[in-house]
């Protein structure tokens, strides 16, 4: 009797689940917009929960994608991806390139109705630099004179040379003339916050109810680890250019689930597409797939303090022995570009040409030359293949299937060509960073993405005094060239120095570039106006949904 009862209740329960699940009056997220209101809501996935939506504390793409839509800096990107005046109506640069005067637009307001003033900017930048704010990205403000010493607790806020001359005029003095400062003012750490609001309520950025911003959209809902809802800001000075009524961003970490949701029509755009899917979409030339440019390089560090890796011939031999085309086509499959130098394509030189193209290919796959260089180098170090193999060298990488596959491919390429044995070791990324810093590795995988479009953002890394120079490259000539590139805004001089520096670097090969990152994303065919600015996530601000 009782057994039957248990069975019966069980079946009943399952039935209830199915029935309530299927016939409950709630509608799917996607249908909400299909109703009579016909609101244009773009639906996408933000990937991870933002750590903070305060521009001074934000530290990555999970924050910046939201911030770039709810805030706007002095400069911004227009609907064609061109850098144009944003909050600033105009600007002037002094002859020596170190002083900028920005004049703000008339009638611009915060989402709470307050006027936006030059003081807001002065306050925001100093706030982002204050040591007690402990902004993770404060270093991007270091170009401003006095900024670094204030952030390091050595100077005072008054010594930071950003000054509101009056309500509409902002004066900024830089440490050195930098060619890309205007672009930096479009970066999220440079976004203004409302001085009155932030001073009165330090927790303003934690709750949509108290959240005040100045961009094309405003934050209306933030369910942690669940979703973020943005709504068009009708008071935005350029509101007529904004076609969307709102943006719904899911916070869903799993790539595959997100892909299923995109495929099922629950998203209009998907940025983090699984690699296997990209490959499939590419093969069927699916028009929804876009391979966006991303300014970043994936490379291997080589420890120069370990014999025989101290020998440039060994390093170069190892580098040109890698068949990068096979790696991007067969292993990574995400549309990456084989690396032919350290600077990825997309950056302009003094003539407006692509920096990468004008320097040319500095790495050419050549197994014969590789073998010759490697054997010579090994002999110069008094080593044999046997001794190399007995040394138990490893490629160190952070635990991830994608990293492992690349390391395996390279391990095999080296084994086949040189007959060397090199092991694989995976650790979590924190441990890897730790071991790189302490020099406890032979070969380690690394990568670098930049925040502004200038080759120096890469080349600076291998200056002997750079804190991030894990490959411990040290060449006074190289240091000199980078210093030159950083001290003037004469593009002819700068670019010539940087081109030479890249050639020198690739001659010494302290690191082995493998491929240039790309950012594949998929967009439904009824969505227009989404485009990619190299250092940003796809820009959705000007998107439109068509019938």
């Amino acid at each position: 009797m009782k057994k039957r009862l248990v069975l019966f209740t069980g079946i009943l329960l399952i039935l209830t689940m199915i029935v309530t699940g299927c016939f409950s009056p709630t509608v799917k997220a996607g249908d909400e917009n299909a109703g009579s209101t016909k609101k244009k809501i773009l639906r996408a996935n933000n990937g991870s929960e933002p750590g903070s939506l305060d521009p001074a504390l934000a530290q990555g793409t999970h924050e910046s994608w939201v911030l770039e839509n709810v805030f706007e800096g002095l400069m911004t990107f227009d609907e064609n991806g061109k850098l144009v005046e944003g909050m600033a109506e105009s600007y002037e640069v002094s002859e020596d390139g170190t002083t900028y005067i920005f004049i703000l637009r008339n009638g611009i307001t915060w989402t709470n109705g307050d006027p936006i003033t030059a003081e807001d900017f002065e306050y925001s930048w100093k706030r982002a630099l204050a040591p007690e704010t402990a902004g993770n990205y404060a270093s991007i403000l270091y170009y401003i004179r006095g900024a670094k010493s204030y952030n390091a607790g050595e100077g005072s806020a008054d010594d930071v040379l950003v000054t509101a001359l009056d309500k509409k005029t902002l004066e900024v003095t830089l440490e050195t003339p930098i060619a890309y400062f205007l672009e930096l003012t479009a970066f999220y750490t440079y976004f203004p916050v409302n001085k009155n609001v932030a001073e009165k309520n330090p927790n303003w950025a934690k709750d949509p109810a108290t959240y005040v911003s100045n961009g094309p959209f405003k934050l209306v809902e933030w369910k942690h680890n669940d979703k973020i809802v943005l709504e068009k800001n009708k008071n935005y000075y350029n509101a007529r250019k904004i076609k969307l009524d709102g943006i719904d961003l899911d916070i869903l970490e799993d790539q595959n689930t997100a892909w299923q949701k995109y495929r099922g029509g629950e998203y209009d755009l998907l940025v983090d597409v699984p690699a296997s899917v990209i490959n499939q979409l590419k093969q069927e030339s699916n028009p929804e797939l876009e391979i966006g440019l991303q300014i970043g390089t994936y490379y291997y560090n080589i420890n120069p303090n370990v014999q025989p890796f101290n020998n440039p011939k060994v390093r170069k031999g190892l580098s040109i022995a890698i068949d990068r085309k096979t790696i991007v086509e067969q292993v990574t499959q995400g549309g990456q570009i084989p690396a032919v130098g350290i600077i990825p394509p997309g950056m302009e030189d003094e003539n407006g040409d692509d920096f990468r193209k004008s320097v040319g290919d500095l790495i050419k796959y050549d197994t014969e030359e590789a073998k010759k260089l490697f054997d010579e180098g090994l002999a110069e170090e008094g080593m044999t293949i046997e001794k190399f193999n007995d040394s138990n060298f490893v490629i160190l990488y952070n635990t991830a299937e994608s990293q492992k596959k690349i390391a395996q491919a390279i391990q095999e390429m080296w084994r086949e060509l040189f007959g060397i044995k090199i092991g694989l070791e995976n650790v979590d990324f924190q441990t890897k960073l730790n071991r790189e810093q302490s020099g406890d590795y032979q070969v380690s995988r690394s990568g670098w993405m930049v925040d502004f479009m200038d080759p120096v953002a890469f080349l600076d890394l291998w200056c002997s005094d750079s804190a991030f120079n894990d490959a411990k490259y040290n060449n006074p000539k190289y240091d000199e060239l980078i210093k030159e590139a950083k001290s003037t805004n004469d593009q002819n001089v700068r670019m010539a120095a940087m081109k030479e520096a890249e050639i020198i670097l690739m001659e010494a090969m302290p690191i082995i570039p493998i491929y240039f990152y790309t950012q594949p994303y998929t967009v439904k065919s009824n969505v227009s106006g989404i485009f990619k600015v190299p250092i940003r996530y796809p820009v959705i601000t000007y998107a439109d949904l068509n019938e």
Partner: protein
Amino acid sequence: MSKYILKRLLLSIITIWAIITITFVLMNAIPGNPFANENRKIPENIYENLMKKYGLDKPKTEQYITYLKNIAKFDFGKSMRSDTETVNEMISRGFPVSAVLGFEALLISLIFGPTLGVIAALYRNKAPDYISMIISIIGVSVPGFLMGTFLIQFVATKFDCIPIGGWGGFRHTILPSITLAMMPLAQISRLMRSGMLEVLNQDYLKTARSKGLAGSVIIMKHAVRNAILPIVSILGTTISNLLTGSFVIEKIFGIPGIGMFFINSVFNRDYTLIMGVTVFYSIVLIITMLLVDIAYTLIDPRIRLTKGGH
């Protein structure tokens, strides 16, 4: 009984203190720091500002004492990776979500687990036994991420009424709770089966049969009641595991629970969150264990919690 509970509570406090101490030592022993970023390295002085902001520049003993003091007040502090929520807020937001899923999964496994086990035992080496065996093997051996992906692929994308992922209403809980229930369901059904087989051969069942009692009465009143004891003993850990969420399942289905904090906090070296979820989990575990021990005495009158506590 109350004396016993009081003793257990005292013991719990000591246990939690030991857990805090071990966690503190371990999390400080692993390399890395909460501010490291995979794609971007931060300059030294910014790192120092961050260390200062979160009190990590203080000596370890001082940090340890601060932790202890705050935890005594149930204040787990600020998360080092989120400027938006404190650890307390994260737990109080995530736990109800994970608990709802866990409760549904518990219900499913408690209904179907014993049922399958009993059926398997009664039809030993016959078709029902094999079917229940197959279900159990799938439950134990198919990992959650596979089961979850499979359900999304073949159920959620086929039926409009079942969402692919996310959190909203009851519909959103169906697939994740089934996925979550598979493992305990399988364990329970196997335990139930072996328990039943052992009990079915006992003399007192023969006696019951010879007394002419109906088959169902014998099974329910005499057999199941005895066979269920091993299940009760694993329920403590099962319940606390289910209630505190699963990293894999929450990630796959995009569920804002606390399951993902357990892995992510360690991965990010978010020290305060590591401590918060560890202590929280310990408390949940200790409470369920206590409840299970009490439940024992109710099911089996032979078991006494205290010596001579008749």
